[in-house]
């Protein structure tokens, strides 16, 4: 989950009429987890579906609601303007077909606001933008741009001065040399033509979804902003724009529209949506008996508009709340506005009878019987390494199942055997008191259109007098006592076990496992200093299906 750092004093200034304590106690009830606090600064974790909470402006809108200071939805006041326009050429339709935008004027821009806007932009790119693939955003200094703009395509030799650069670079150079180019160039694929926004003087404004032009850089001297969003579908682009527009309006900017036309593009409306929800769905889902007026006031505290409409509650949802899909989302909005702290837990009697899965019961019997025989239960990862699974035990890998891009060298392939892990455990305990007797039950994996999972059971015994026969007695005892099964052993060979002291384990004539004295090669690999005996059998198909 993303994290944003905000200051209590700024939140207090924005919210007004709220103490630091009230704010700090309310944050979790907006779904904002306080990760850490340092005097005035607080780091909060917010849900990726609420990018409006990536700025202190957005958080204060939520706080105003939940504290009852200002309720109801935030309406975007967009002045219709004919000054600003973007013309879209049809050549963009195969690469990045949609553009939308807005103008924000007369705001105060300081370092703190720039920092917040940058954080919001990053979050939008990562979240709904899906790493800029679905949609991406550019924020510019309005006064450095000559309207109308054209959204079109260009070839990779096109040159302009990109953000944070002093020299002109070609599109190809930007994609190769800049960090953003390397990170997001993938979005454009191998296409010869790339999207570009140019102004009426034919100067580049933005090379979506990679980088803005340097000349439109927003600084603390900037008064007016131009925001453009491009994307592969109109809905996502407008969702993104609505978050930015809402935040900029809350930050004190006056919004003005940008006319968009050409190639199926239109000027964004950024209107409220209507959605209706029945009070019984709300009360049944939450286990409450709220009357309509409480429901309405709760929705308003969640910064939505609501009125009674026949038997239902009709809601107006501002465009930046695209996380609201349907009536169940409104149920949550009621819960938040009403106050989750007011929901009291209620234990209803169960109409169902509980049951332990028979597999769990049987595995527990194995464990308890082994404990009775003096064995200690171990637990190892089922995602392990080639080293433990094959190299140390001299086993040949047969069709191992690997995972992609593991962050840990020790967890790269799924185990097909439990015993190697137990031997590894012994090697890490050579200074602990002997005898050491360990067992484990767990899942092992095999490729078989696609994967077979079986439950195996293995044990090891390390001590000066560890030997084959007593190990066989142990296995015999656990299967006899636990499941009334008789075992037979037949001479066998196995890479991990000593020749002449290895046997396959049979039940009813069917091979179910292997046992014996671990060979000196394996013991030396693991640097174990005493003899070790062990066994491994497959329980699936033997004591359960």
């Amino acid at each position, binding site marked *: 989950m993303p994290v944003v750092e905000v200051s209590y004093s700024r939140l207090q200034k924005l919210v007004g009429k709220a103490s630091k304590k009230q704010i700090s106690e309310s944050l979790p009830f907006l779904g904002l987890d306080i990760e850490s606090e340092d005097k005035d600064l607080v780091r909060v974790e917010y849900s990726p579906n609420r990018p409006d909470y990536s700025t202190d402006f957005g958080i204060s809108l939520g706080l105003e609601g939940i504290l009852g200071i200002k309720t109801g939805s935030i309406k975007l006041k967009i002045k219709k303007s004919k000054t600003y326009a973007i013309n879209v050429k049809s050549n963009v339709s195969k690469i990045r077909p949609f553009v939308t935008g807005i103008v924000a004027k007369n705001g105060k821009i300081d370092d703190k606001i720039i920092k917040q806007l940058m954080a919001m932009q990053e979050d939008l790119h990562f979240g709904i933008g*899906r790493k800029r693939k679905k949609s991406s955003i550019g924020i510019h200094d309005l006064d450095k741009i000559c309207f109308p703009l054209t959204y079109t395509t260009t070839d990779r030799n096109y040159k302009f001065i990109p953000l944070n650069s002093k020299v002109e670079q070609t599109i190809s150079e930007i994609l190769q040399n800049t960090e953003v180019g390397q990170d997001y160039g993938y979005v454009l694929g191998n296409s010869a033509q790339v999207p570009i926004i140019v102004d009426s003087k034919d100067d580049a404004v933005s090379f979506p979804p990679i980088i803005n032009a340097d000349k439109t850089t927003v600084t603390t001297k900037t008064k007016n902003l131009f925001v453009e969003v491009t994307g592969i579908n109109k809905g996502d682009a407008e969702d993104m724009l609505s978050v930015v527009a809402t935040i900029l309006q809350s930050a004190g900017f006056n919004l003005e529209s940008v006319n968009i036309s050409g190639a199926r593009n239109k000027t964004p409306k950024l209107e409220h949506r209507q959605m209706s929800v029945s009070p019984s769905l709300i009360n049944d889902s939450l286990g409450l008996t709220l009357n309509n007026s409480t429901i309405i006031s709760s929705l308003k505290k969640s910064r939505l508009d609501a009125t009674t409409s026949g038997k239902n509650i009709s809601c107006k949802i501002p465009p930046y709340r695209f996380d609201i899909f349907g009536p169940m989302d409104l149920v949550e909005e009621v819960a938040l506005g009403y106050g989750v702290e007011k929901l009291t837990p209620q*234990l209803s009697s169960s109409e169902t009878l509980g049951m*332990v899965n028979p597999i769990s019961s049987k595995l527990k019997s194995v464990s308890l019987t082994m404990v009775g025989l003096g064995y200690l239960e171990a637990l190892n990862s089922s995602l392990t390494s080639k080293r433990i699974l094959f190299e140390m035990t001299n086993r040949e890998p047969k069709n191992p199942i690997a995972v992609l891009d593991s962050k840990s060298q020790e967890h790269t392939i799924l185990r097909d055997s439990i015993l190697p892990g137990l031997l590894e455990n012994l090697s890490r305990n050579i200074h602990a008191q002997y005898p050491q*007797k360990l067992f484990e039950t767990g899942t092992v994996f095999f490729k078989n259109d696609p994967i077979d999972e079986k439950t195996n059971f293995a044990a090891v015994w390390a001590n000066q007098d560890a030997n084959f026969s007593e190990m066989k007695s142990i296995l015999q005892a656990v299967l006899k006592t636990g499941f009334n099964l008789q075992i037979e052993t037949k001479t066998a060979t196995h890479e991990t076990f000593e020749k002449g002291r290895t046997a396959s384990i049979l039940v009813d004539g069917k091979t179910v496992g292997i046992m014996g004295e671990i060979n000196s090669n394996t013991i030396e690999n693991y640097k174990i200093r005493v003899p070790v005996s062990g066994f491994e059998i497959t329980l699936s198909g033997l004591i359960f299906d």
Partner: protein
Amino acid sequence: MSQVFHEIEKKIISILKSESNLTPEKIGELTQLSPDQVRRGIEWLRLKELAIVNESQNITFSLGKNGLEAFESGLPERKLVDLIKDGSMKISDLQKQLGSVFGPAMGLAKKNNWIESKENELSLKTYPSNIPGEKTLKQIGKSSVSEQDIDKEDLQSLMRRPEFIIENLIKTKQISLTKNAQSLDISDSDSGAIDVEANVPEIFVARTHPLKDTIDEIREIFVTLGFTEIFGNLTQPSFWNFDALFTPQDHPARELQDTFYLDGVSSKKIGTPDQIRKVSESHKKGWRYYWDINEARKMVLRTHTTCVTIKHLAENKSEEARVFSLGRVFRNEKVSYKHLVEFNQIEGVVVGSNANLRNLMGIQREFYRRIGITKIKFWPTFFPYTEPSLQTMVYNERLGKWVELFGMGIFRPEVTKPLGITKPVLAWGGGIERIAMLKYGLDDVREFYNNNLNWLRSATKCQ
């Protein structure tokens, strides 16, 4: 230290007071204790620093096969001189009577001037009263004699002969009392009592794994709350792990850096055609993108156990149900004191027309109460597949702060509808290691999988 002595110890002490440096055998003889009682008594006294055990080595001699024969019927040279004591005899007759030892016996007797030979006969010159070795033979006889009691010169003549003498190396223990023990008055100590305050050696129990204990405890609690345990595979098609739970295919959680994908493994069968069609429609409508069935086929290591419960619900479509699934889940994370790549999760659902959020909170509160956690509260949170969503915060007394435990919520209609589930489904779940860490007071989650015997042998079972 209290001076309480066992009857065995008392007997040994009183014997040793009158005679020191006794062997355990001698002590046994004098005290009438069994060898095992003597051994134990000596060990107790040694640990209490009341007895000194001096180990020494001693050599004893006993007779071999030929030695025993000579002991019974005389040395060959004695037999020879006895035969000719009353007159000379033919060599060939003597050879017949004495067999293979005749040669060496004649040689020895000649050398010592006891006999002389004329033509083919032997006759006596001087009858020896003592032959070297006879004294030793008689002394050893059928028992054994220690080195210091034997006439070494006399022994030498026997040592050279094959299978006459067996040399035994015997380790003996000699026990004496320490000064403290010499002055002990044992008459007033309780009869039959032992030193109950003394330290004893540590014994390690065999046991189930502490984390397994926690898992069993949690399983039992939910079973008694009316839940039935279900099982599912650890490897799952993305369809059940993500798509069925309304997680869009381009969602960051589905990327390689968070989820383990199996290299080159896809599942041909992921669901019924109806399930696949409806889930894909739900995605297209909700998330506005091209839904790719090949993405849904990719096999992953399950990132939660929710895939097991949702599949169960889709297959059974129960109107009333309480089920849970418990087991390993995987995340592609860097291993640290906080994070494991593989850990255990429990996840359960309640299906029913009357299921509501407060009931769900009630189940959680009851669960925490039973594991001994009473200071809890609920905070709103976000999960892609539940709405509304809450998380439980529990107060960790040791850390002095609120920590997040189970998450919960009502399955979104976007999840349930495509799978034909019509009744509300309450879902909850979370990591088990976190609870076990609270229980065992651990700060490093890796300890559960280190299999460090010192920890496993010492972690207290009931916390």
